[in-house]
C-alpha cells in the first residue's frame, strides 16, 4: 500500500496549518478590536488585521491553485452523508477564505481607508469611497466571519470525532508527523 497517497502533500499541510493559525488569529483580533475605543492601539490592530486578511487571501489563492492541480488523498470509508457533509464544509470554507477578506477589503475601501499592505504596498480600491455603502458592507464582514467560525468548529469537531471515536486515522492525513 502506498502510504504517501493517503496523506496530503507536505505543501498542502503547510498551507492548511499556517492558514489555520492566521485565520484563528485574525478572527480573534477582529472580535477584540471592534470593541476598543478610538486609540493608537486600535488603529494598529485594525491595520494588522487588514494586513493579515490580505495575506490570508493571497495564501488562499495559492492554496486553491495547489488544491486544483494536486489530487487530495482518497476518502476513507464512511457513511455517504458524512462524506457529503465533509466535502460541503470544505467547499464552503474555501468560498469564505475568499469572501471574508474580500468583503473586509471592500469595507475598508468604501470607508475611505485604502489598504497599504504591511504599510508598504498600496492596494487598489475596487469599490468607491461611500459612507453609506461602507455601513451596508460592514456587518457582512462579521456575518461571514462568524459563519466561517461555525464551519471551522464543525470541521474541528468532525476531525476529533474521527480521531477519538471512530479511530480511523483520518487526522493523520493532515497531521505533519503522521500518526
Amino acid at each position, binding site marked *: 500500500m502506498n502510504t504517501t497517497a493517503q496523506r496530503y502533500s507536505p505543501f498542502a499541510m503547510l498551507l492548511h496549518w499556517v492558514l489555520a493559525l492566521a485565520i484563528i488569529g485574525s478572527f480573534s483580533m477582529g472580535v477584540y478590536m471592534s470593541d476598543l475605543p*478610538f486609540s*493608537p492601539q486600535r*488603529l*494598529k490592530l485594525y491595520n494588522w488585521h487588514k494586513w493579515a486578511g490580505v495575506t490570508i487571501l493571497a495564501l488562499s489563492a495559492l492554496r486553491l491553485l495547489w488544491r486544483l492541480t494536486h489530487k487530495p488523498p482518497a476518502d476513507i470509508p464512511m457513511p455517504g452523508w458524512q462524506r457529503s457533509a465533509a466535502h460541503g464544509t470544505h467547499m464552503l470554507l474555501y468560498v469564505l477564505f475568499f469572501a471574508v477578506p474580500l468583503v473586509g477589503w471592500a469595507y475598508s475601501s468604501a470607508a475611505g*481607508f*485604502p489598504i497599504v499592505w504591511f*504599510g508598504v504596498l498600496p492596494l487598489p480600491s475596487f469599490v468607491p469611497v461611500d*459612507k453609506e455603502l*461602507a455601513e451596508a458592507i460592514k456587518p457582512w464582514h462579521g456575518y461571514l466571519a462568524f459563519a466561517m467560525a461555525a464551519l471551522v468548529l464543525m470541521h474541528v469537531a468532525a476531525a476529533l470525532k474521527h480521531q477519538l471515536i471512530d479511530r480511523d486515522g483520518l487526522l493523520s492525513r493532515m497531521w505533519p508527523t503522521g500518526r
Partner: protein
Amino acid sequence: MKTYLMVAALAAMSATAFPACAQQKLVPAQSEIAFSSKQMGVPVDGKFKKFDAQVAFDPKKPEASKIGFTIDLASVSIGSSETEAEVAKPDWFNTKSFPQATFQSSGVKATGPGKFEVAGTLAIKGASQNVVVPVTVAQAGGTTTATGAFGIKRLDFKIGDGDWKDTSMVANEVQVKFKLNLTGVPPL
C-alpha cells in the same frame, strides 16, 4: 450738490487710484482647503468646509499685499464620523479652546509670471510657526484662482498629542493644499 459731486468724484478716483484697496472677496463655494497625512502608510485626506479670507493683493505690487485667513477647525471633514469626533478632542485640534486656525502674511513676493511666495505666520492650537507658501495665480473672467501646497509638521502644533505623538502611527508630515477663488483682484 457740489459736495455730492465732489464725494462721488473722490470715491471714483480712489477706486481707480488704489485698486488694491477695492473689495477683494473669497468665493468659498469655489475654494478648497485640504490636507493629507499618513497613518501606518495609509493616506488620509481631509478638508475644511468653513474658512474665510481677508485679501488685499495687488499682483503688480505684491510686497504691499496683505493676506489673512481664518479656518474653522470644527468644520473638518475627514474619513469617518468617528474620526471627525476624535479630531475635535483636546489631543488633536481641541476645537473648544481653539476654534480657529489663522494665517497672516508678513510678506509677498513675485517669483515668476503668475508665481508668488507668501511668507507668514500660521497659528493653530495656540502655537505659531513661520511658513513660506508658494502660490500660483491664474485669472479668468473676473475670477482669480490661487493654488498651492505646503508642508507642516503636526507636532509643531501639538496636533495628535499624548498617545498619538508616535509618528510611526500617524506621520508628522502633513501636506496642506488649497485652491482659492477670489473676486476683485487687480489683473496680473
